[in-house]
Protein backbone atom coordinates (compact mmCIF):
# COMPACT_ATOMS: atom_id res chain seq x y z
CA UNK A 1 0.00 0.00 0.00
CA UNK A 2 3.01 2.33 0.06
CA UNK A 3 2.92 2.51 -3.73
CA UNK A 4 -0.87 2.76 -4.01
CA UNK A 5 -1.81 6.03 -5.70
CA UNK A 6 -3.89 7.96 -3.18
CA UNK A 7 -4.16 10.95 -5.52
CA UNK A 8 -6.42 9.33 -8.06
CA UNK A 9 -9.90 7.84 -8.04
CA UNK A 10 -10.22 4.05 -7.95
CA UNK A 11 -12.86 1.50 -8.88
CA UNK A 12 -14.61 -0.71 -6.34
CA UNK A 13 -12.38 -3.69 -7.22
CA UNK A 14 -9.24 -1.61 -6.74
CA UNK A 15 -10.45 -0.34 -3.36
CA UNK A 16 -11.35 -3.86 -2.23
CA UNK A 17 -7.88 -5.06 -3.34
CA UNK A 18 -6.33 -2.19 -1.41
CA UNK A 19 -8.23 -3.29 1.70
CA UNK A 20 -6.95 -6.85 1.36
CA UNK A 21 -3.42 -5.60 0.92
CA UNK A 22 -3.65 -3.40 4.01
CA UNK A 23 -4.92 -6.33 6.06
CA UNK A 24 -2.09 -8.53 4.75
CA UNK A 25 0.50 -5.89 5.65
CA UNK A 26 -0.84 -5.27 9.16
CA UNK A 27 -2.42 -8.51 10.37
CA UNK A 28 -2.01 -7.55 14.03
CA UNK A 29 -3.78 -4.24 13.57
CA UNK A 30 -6.31 -4.54 10.75
CA UNK A 31 -9.01 -7.09 10.00
CA UNK A 32 -11.68 -7.09 7.35
CA UNK A 33 -15.24 -7.88 8.36
CA UNK A 34 -18.09 -8.53 5.98
CA UNK A 35 -21.18 -7.00 7.55
CA UNK A 36 -23.63 -7.79 4.76
CA UNK A 37 -24.36 -8.20 1.08
CA UNK A 38 -25.83 -5.60 -1.25
CA UNK A 39 -28.97 -5.87 -3.38
CA UNK A 40 -26.82 -6.88 -6.35
CA UNK A 41 -24.85 -9.39 -4.30
CA UNK A 42 -21.66 -7.48 -3.55
CA UNK A 43 -20.00 -7.90 -0.15
CA UNK A 44 -20.16 -4.96 2.25
CA UNK A 45 -16.79 -4.72 3.99
CA UNK A 46 -15.64 -2.86 7.07
CA UNK A 47 -12.04 -2.53 8.23
CA UNK A 48 -11.52 -3.00 11.94
CA UNK A 49 -8.46 -1.34 13.46
CA UNK A 50 -7.74 -2.74 16.89
CA UNK A 51 -4.77 -3.04 19.21
CA UNK A 52 -6.37 -5.74 21.32
CA UNK A 53 -9.02 -6.45 23.92
CA UNK A 54 -12.54 -7.66 23.40
CA UNK A 55 -15.49 -5.46 22.64
CA UNK A 56 -13.60 -2.28 23.33
CA UNK A 57 -15.44 1.00 22.95
CA UNK A 58 -15.31 1.95 19.31
CA UNK A 59 -15.45 4.75 16.78
CA UNK A 60 -17.31 4.20 13.52
CA UNK A 61 -16.45 6.06 10.31
CA UNK A 62 -18.24 5.49 7.01
CA UNK A 63 -17.58 7.11 3.68
CA UNK A 64 -19.52 7.27 0.46
CA UNK A 65 -23.10 6.29 1.27
CA UNK A 66 -23.99 8.49 -1.72
CA UNK A 67 -22.11 6.75 -4.47
CA UNK A 68 -21.23 9.70 -6.71
CA UNK A 69 -19.37 11.54 -3.94
CA UNK A 70 -16.06 10.07 -5.06
CA UNK A 71 -13.77 12.25 -2.99
CA UNK A 72 -15.39 10.70 0.06
CA UNK A 73 -14.48 7.09 -0.71
CA UNK A 74 -11.03 8.27 -1.84
CA UNK A 75 -10.59 10.00 1.51
CA UNK A 76 -11.66 6.78 3.24
CA UNK A 77 -8.82 4.93 1.52
CA UNK A 78 -6.38 7.62 2.66
CA UNK A 79 -7.70 7.42 6.26
CA UNK A 80 -7.14 3.66 6.30
CA UNK A 81 -3.51 4.06 5.31
CA UNK A 82 -3.07 6.99 7.69
CA UNK A 83 -4.28 4.91 10.63
CA UNK A 84 -1.69 2.19 9.96
CA UNK A 85 1.04 4.79 9.40
CA UNK A 86 0.35 6.92 12.47
CA UNK A 87 -0.23 4.19 15.01
CA UNK A 88 2.91 4.03 17.12
CA UNK A 89 4.24 7.24 15.53
CA UNK A 90 1.77 9.97 16.46
CA UNK A 91 1.33 9.92 20.25
CA UNK A 92 -2.14 11.51 20.22
CA UNK A 93 -3.48 9.04 17.68
CA UNK A 94 -1.71 6.10 19.32
CA UNK A 95 -3.50 6.92 22.58
CA UNK A 96 -6.82 6.83 20.75
CA UNK A 97 -6.22 3.43 19.16
CA UNK A 98 -4.78 2.03 22.40
CA UNK A 99 -8.12 2.72 24.04
CA UNK A 100 -10.69 2.30 21.31
CA UNK A 101 -11.25 0.31 18.13
CA UNK A 102 -11.96 2.06 14.86
CA UNK A 103 -14.35 0.66 12.27
CA UNK A 104 -14.00 2.14 8.79
CA UNK A 105 -16.47 1.41 6.00
CA UNK A 106 -14.83 2.86 2.90
CA UNK A 107 -17.50 2.01 0.33
CA UNK A 108 -20.84 2.19 2.10
CA UNK A 109 -22.88 1.82 -1.09
CA UNK A 110 -20.95 -0.67 -3.26
CA UNK A 111 -23.69 -1.20 -5.88
CA UNK A 112 -24.13 2.51 -6.41
CA UNK A 113 -20.38 3.08 -6.49
CA UNK A 114 -19.84 0.36 -9.12
CA UNK A 115 -22.69 1.89 -11.12
CA UNK A 116 -21.03 5.32 -11.07
CA UNK A 117 -17.92 3.76 -12.58
CA UNK A 118 -19.61 1.70 -15.26
CA UNK A 119 -22.87 3.37 -16.26
CA UNK A 120 -23.85 6.64 -14.67
CA UNK A 121 -21.28 8.83 -12.91
CA UNK A 122 -24.10 10.85 -11.35
CA UNK A 123 -25.80 7.99 -9.51
CA UNK A 124 -26.32 8.59 -5.80
CA UNK A 125 -28.81 5.99 -4.51
CA UNK A 126 -28.69 2.24 -3.93
CA UNK A 127 -29.63 -0.10 -6.81
CA UNK A 128 -32.58 -1.90 -5.25
CA UNK A 129 -35.87 -2.32 -7.11
CA UNK A 130 -39.19 -1.03 -5.89
CA UNK A 131 -42.20 -3.14 -6.67
CA UNK A 132 -44.59 -1.29 -8.96
CA UNK A 133 -42.05 1.28 -10.11
CA UNK A 134 -39.59 1.42 -12.98
CA UNK A 135 -37.35 3.73 -10.99
CA UNK A 136 -34.39 2.17 -9.23
CA UNK A 137 -32.77 2.85 -5.89
CA UNK A 138 -33.38 4.32 -2.47
CA UNK A 139 -31.56 7.19 -0.84
CA UNK A 140 -29.77 5.28 1.93
CA UNK A 141 -29.47 8.47 3.95
CA UNK A 142 -33.27 8.68 4.25
CA UNK A 143 -33.84 5.00 5.02
CA UNK A 144 -32.99 4.93 8.75
CA UNK A 145 -35.49 4.47 11.51
CA UNK A 146 -35.41 8.03 12.82
CA UNK A 147 -38.31 10.25 11.88
CA UNK A 148 -38.84 7.92 8.93
CA UNK A 149 -41.62 9.17 6.68
CA UNK A 150 -41.59 12.70 8.08
CA UNK A 151 -40.97 15.70 5.80
CA UNK A 152 -37.43 15.87 4.42
CA UNK A 153 -37.56 12.68 2.36
CA UNK A 154 -39.64 11.58 -0.60
CA UNK A 155 -42.15 8.77 -0.95
CA UNK A 156 -41.69 8.86 -4.74
CA UNK A 157 -39.40 6.04 -5.96
CA UNK A 158 -38.22 8.26 -8.82
CA UNK A 159 -37.00 10.98 -6.47
CA UNK A 160 -33.31 11.29 -5.54
CA UNK A 161 -34.38 11.42 -1.89
CA UNK A 162 -36.70 8.41 -2.02
CA UNK A 163 -36.83 7.00 1.51
CA UNK A 164 -37.77 3.41 0.61
CA UNK A 165 -40.86 1.47 1.57
CA UNK A 166 -39.90 0.97 5.20
CA UNK A 167 -36.97 1.77 7.49
CA UNK A 168 -33.88 -0.42 6.91
CA UNK A 169 -35.30 -1.73 3.63
CA UNK A 170 -31.82 -1.27 2.12
CA UNK A 171 -29.29 -3.94 2.99
CA UNK A 172 -26.59 -1.24 3.04
CA UNK A 173 -28.46 0.39 5.93
CA UNK A 174 -29.69 -2.79 7.64
CA UNK A 175 -26.15 -4.20 7.71
CA UNK A 176 -24.88 -1.19 9.64
CA UNK A 177 -27.90 -1.19 11.95
CA UNK A 178 -27.35 -4.86 12.79
CA UNK A 179 -23.64 -4.35 13.28
CA UNK A 180 -24.01 -1.28 15.50
CA UNK A 181 -26.73 -2.82 17.66
CA UNK A 182 -24.92 -6.13 18.09
CA UNK A 183 -21.64 -4.37 18.89
CA UNK A 184 -23.34 -2.26 21.52
CA UNK A 185 -20.29 -0.21 22.46
CA UNK A 186 -19.86 2.34 19.71
CA UNK A 187 -19.21 5.75 21.21
CA UNK A 188 -18.75 7.93 18.14
CA UNK A 189 -20.32 7.56 14.72
CA UNK A 190 -19.09 9.73 11.87
CA UNK A 191 -20.72 9.51 8.48
CA UNK A 192 -18.84 11.29 5.69
CA UNK A 193 -20.37 12.81 2.57
CA UNK A 194 -19.41 15.49 0.08
CA UNK A 195 -19.85 18.29 -0.90
CA UNK A 196 -20.65 21.76 0.56
CA UNK A 197 -18.22 21.94 3.48
CA UNK A 198 -20.29 21.29 6.57
CA UNK A 199 -19.96 19.46 9.87
CA UNK A 200 -23.39 18.55 11.18
CA UNK A 201 -24.90 16.96 14.25
CA UNK A 202 -28.47 15.81 15.09
CA UNK A 203 -31.24 16.46 14.49
CA UNK A 204 -32.34 16.51 10.88
CA UNK A 205 -35.95 15.48 11.22
CA UNK A 206 -36.95 17.85 14.01
CA UNK A 207 -36.03 21.38 15.02
CA UNK A 208 -35.98 20.32 18.65
CA UNK A 209 -32.39 20.66 19.90
CA UNK A 210 -30.52 17.45 20.69
CA UNK A 211 -30.06 16.99 24.46
CA UNK A 212 -26.27 17.21 24.00
CA UNK A 213 -26.44 20.14 21.59
CA UNK A 214 -24.10 22.43 23.55
CA UNK A 215 -21.34 19.84 23.77
CA UNK A 216 -21.78 18.75 20.16
CA UNK A 217 -21.68 22.36 19.02
CA UNK A 218 -18.46 23.07 20.94
CA UNK A 219 -16.87 19.90 19.62
CA UNK A 220 -17.93 20.70 16.05
CA UNK A 221 -16.43 24.18 16.44
CA UNK A 222 -13.09 22.70 17.56
CA UNK A 223 -13.13 20.09 14.80
CA UNK A 224 -13.82 22.70 12.13
CA UNK A 225 -11.06 24.94 13.51
CA UNK A 226 -8.61 22.03 13.24
CA UNK A 227 -9.75 21.29 9.70
CA UNK A 228 -9.47 24.91 8.58
CA UNK A 229 -6.00 25.29 10.10
CA UNK A 230 -4.38 23.15 7.39
CA UNK A 231 -5.46 24.63 4.06
CA UNK A 232 -7.87 27.39 5.08
CA UNK A 233 -10.96 25.50 3.87
CA UNK A 234 -14.03 27.09 5.42
CA UNK A 235 -16.66 24.83 6.99
CA UNK A 236 -19.97 25.69 8.62
CA UNK A 237 -21.28 23.62 11.51
CA UNK A 238 -24.54 23.10 13.36
CA UNK A 239 -27.53 20.81 13.47
CA UNK A 240 -28.71 19.38 10.14
CA UNK A 241 -32.09 21.10 10.21
CA UNK A 242 -30.70 24.49 11.19
CA UNK A 243 -27.70 24.43 8.89
CA UNK A 244 -29.12 22.98 5.68
CA UNK A 245 -32.63 21.61 5.62
CA UNK A 246 -35.02 19.13 7.15
CA UNK A 247 -33.87 15.58 6.38
CA UNK A 248 -35.79 12.72 7.93
CA UNK A 249 -34.61 9.11 8.21
CA UNK A 250 -30.96 10.11 8.15
CA UNK A 251 -28.02 8.15 9.53
CA UNK A 252 -26.89 10.18 12.50
CA UNK A 253 -30.38 10.85 13.84
CA UNK A 254 -30.68 7.09 14.15
CA UNK A 255 -27.25 6.59 15.73
CA UNK A 256 -27.96 9.40 18.19
CA UNK A 257 -31.27 7.76 19.09
CA UNK A 258 -29.28 4.60 19.86
CA UNK A 259 -27.31 6.49 22.51
CA UNK A 260 -24.24 7.26 20.40
CA UNK A 261 -23.67 10.77 21.66
CA UNK A 262 -20.88 11.76 19.30
CA UNK A 263 -22.83 11.41 16.06
CA UNK A 264 -21.64 13.65 13.25
CA UNK A 265 -21.88 13.89 9.51
CA UNK A 266 -19.43 15.71 7.26
CA UNK A 267 -19.86 17.28 3.85
CA UNK A 268 -16.36 17.53 2.43
CA UNK A 269 -14.92 20.24 0.23
CA UNK A 270 -15.90 21.68 -3.08
CA UNK A 271 -13.05 24.13 -3.50
CA UNK A 272 -13.05 25.05 -7.16
CA UNK A 273 -16.80 24.79 -7.78
CA UNK A 274 -16.65 21.30 -9.22
CA UNK A 275 -19.20 19.62 -6.93
CA UNK A 276 -19.07 15.84 -7.20
CA UNK A 277 -16.46 16.17 -9.94
CA UNK A 278 -13.71 17.38 -7.62
CA UNK A 279 -10.36 17.00 -9.41
CA UNK A 280 -8.27 14.09 -8.14
CA UNK A 281 -5.51 16.55 -7.23
CA UNK A 282 -7.73 17.61 -4.31
CA UNK A 283 -8.16 14.15 -2.81
CA UNK A 284 -5.14 14.31 -0.53
CA UNK A 285 -5.68 17.87 0.72
CA UNK A 286 -9.32 16.98 1.41
CA UNK A 287 -8.41 13.84 3.31
CA UNK A 288 -5.60 15.57 5.22
CA UNK A 289 -7.79 18.40 6.48
CA UNK A 290 -10.68 16.06 7.29
CA UNK A 291 -8.35 13.82 9.27
CA UNK A 292 -7.57 16.72 11.62
CA UNK A 293 -11.27 17.16 12.32
CA UNK A 294 -11.68 13.41 12.83
CA UNK A 295 -8.75 13.39 15.26
CA UNK A 296 -10.42 16.15 17.26
CA UNK A 297 -13.67 14.17 17.53
CA UNK A 298 -11.90 10.89 18.28
CA UNK A 299 -9.68 12.49 20.92
CA UNK A 300 -12.70 14.10 22.61
CA UNK A 301 -14.51 10.75 22.56
CA UNK A 302 -11.62 8.98 24.29
CA UNK A 303 -11.27 11.73 26.88
CA UNK A 304 -14.98 12.01 27.67
CA UNK A 305 -16.21 8.49 28.36
CA UNK A 306 -19.91 8.02 28.94
Amino acid at each position, binding site marked *: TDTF*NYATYHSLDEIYEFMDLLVAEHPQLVTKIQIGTTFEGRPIHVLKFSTGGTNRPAIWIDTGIHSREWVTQASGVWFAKKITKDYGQDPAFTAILDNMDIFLEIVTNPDGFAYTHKTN*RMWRKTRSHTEGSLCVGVDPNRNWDAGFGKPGASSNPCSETYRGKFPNSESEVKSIVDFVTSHGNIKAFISIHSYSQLLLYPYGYTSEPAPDKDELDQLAKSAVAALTSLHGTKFKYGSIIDTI*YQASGNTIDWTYSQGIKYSFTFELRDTGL*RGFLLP*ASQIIPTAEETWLALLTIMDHTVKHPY
Partner: protein
Amino acid sequence: NENFVGHQVLRISAADEAQVQKVKELEDLEHLQLDFWRDAARAGLPIDVRVPFPSIQSVKAFLEYHDISYEIMIEDVQSLLDEEKQQMSFQARALS
Protein backbone atom coordinates in the same frame (compact mmCIF):
# COMPACT_ATOMS: atom_id res chain seq x y z
CA ASN B 1 -22.32 4.92 -20.35
CA GLU B 2 -24.77 7.73 -19.62
CA ASN B 3 -23.81 10.78 -21.64
CA PHE B 4 -23.72 14.26 -20.08
CA VAL B 5 -22.78 16.29 -23.14
CA GLY B 6 -24.13 19.81 -22.88
CA HIS B 7 -25.35 19.34 -19.31
CA GLN B 8 -24.62 22.42 -17.28
CA VAL B 9 -24.50 22.93 -13.53
CA LEU B 10 -26.03 26.22 -12.50
CA ARG B 11 -25.38 27.88 -9.17
CA ILE B 12 -28.56 29.70 -8.25
CA SER B 13 -28.72 32.43 -5.61
CA ALA B 14 -32.20 32.85 -4.22
CA ALA B 15 -32.48 36.26 -2.59
CA ASP B 16 -35.49 35.52 -0.40
CA GLU B 17 -37.90 32.77 0.60
CA ALA B 18 -40.23 33.57 -2.31
CA GLN B 19 -37.40 32.87 -4.75
CA VAL B 20 -36.53 29.66 -2.90
CA GLN B 21 -40.13 28.56 -3.36
CA LYS B 22 -39.93 29.36 -7.08
CA VAL B 23 -36.84 27.18 -7.42
CA LYS B 24 -38.68 24.43 -5.55
CA GLU B 25 -41.38 24.65 -8.20
CA LEU B 26 -38.68 23.78 -10.73
CA GLU B 27 -37.79 20.75 -8.64
CA ASP B 28 -41.31 19.44 -9.08
CA LEU B 29 -41.22 19.63 -12.87
CA GLU B 30 -40.13 16.07 -13.54
CA HIS B 31 -39.97 16.44 -17.31
CA LEU B 32 -37.01 18.83 -16.95
CA GLN B 33 -35.02 15.98 -15.33
CA LEU B 34 -33.15 18.34 -13.05
CA ASP B 35 -30.58 16.92 -10.65
CA PHE B 36 -30.19 19.07 -7.57
CA TRP B 37 -26.62 18.78 -6.28
CA ARG B 38 -27.46 21.22 -3.50
CA ASP B 39 -31.12 21.49 -2.73
CA ALA B 40 -33.16 24.64 -2.47
CA ALA B 41 -33.04 25.02 1.29
CA ARG B 42 -33.21 28.64 2.26
CA ALA B 43 -32.36 32.12 1.04
CA GLY B 44 -28.65 32.87 1.10
CA LEU B 45 -27.51 29.29 0.55
CA PRO B 46 -26.37 28.43 -2.97
CA ILE B 47 -28.48 26.00 -4.96
CA ASP B 48 -26.56 23.86 -7.45
CA VAL B 49 -28.49 22.05 -10.13
CA ARG B 50 -27.41 19.91 -13.08
CA VAL B 51 -29.54 20.78 -16.07
CA PRO B 52 -29.69 18.42 -19.06
CA PHE B 53 -29.04 20.13 -22.40
CA PRO B 54 -32.68 20.02 -23.63
CA SER B 55 -33.89 21.80 -20.46
CA ILE B 56 -31.31 24.57 -20.33
CA GLN B 57 -33.29 27.20 -22.22
CA SER B 58 -36.45 26.59 -20.20
CA VAL B 59 -34.66 26.70 -16.86
CA LYS B 60 -32.72 29.84 -17.65
CA ALA B 61 -35.85 31.55 -18.99
CA PHE B 62 -37.73 30.58 -15.82
CA LEU B 63 -35.00 31.98 -13.58
CA GLU B 64 -34.66 35.18 -15.58
CA TYR B 65 -38.43 35.71 -15.69
CA HIS B 66 -38.55 35.49 -11.90
CA ASP B 67 -35.47 37.66 -11.54
CA ILE B 68 -33.52 34.92 -9.78
CA SER B 69 -29.79 35.27 -10.25
CA TYR B 70 -27.59 32.37 -11.30
CA GLU B 71 -24.20 31.63 -12.76
CA ILE B 72 -22.91 28.72 -14.78
CA MET B 73 -20.86 26.66 -12.36
CA ILE B 74 -19.96 23.91 -14.85
CA GLU B 75 -20.20 24.68 -18.55
CA ASP B 76 -20.21 21.09 -19.79
CA VAL B 77 -20.39 18.18 -17.34
CA GLN B 78 -19.20 15.65 -19.91
CA SER B 79 -15.94 17.48 -20.54
CA LEU B 80 -15.10 17.23 -16.83
CA LEU B 81 -16.04 13.55 -16.85
CA ASP B 82 -13.80 12.97 -19.86
CA GLU B 83 -10.95 14.70 -18.02
CA GLU B 84 -11.59 12.55 -14.96
CA LYS B 85 -11.64 9.34 -17.00
CA GLN B 86 -8.52 10.28 -18.91
CA GLN B 87 -6.68 10.98 -15.69
CA MET B 88 -7.74 7.65 -14.22
CA SER B 89 -6.63 5.67 -17.24
CA PHE B 90 -3.34 7.60 -17.34
CA GLN B 91 -2.73 6.65 -13.69
CA ALA B 92 -3.62 3.03 -14.38
CA ARG B 93 -1.20 2.91 -17.33
CA ALA B 94 1.52 4.58 -15.29
CA LEU B 95 1.09 1.95 -12.59
CA SER B 96 1.19 -0.99 -14.97
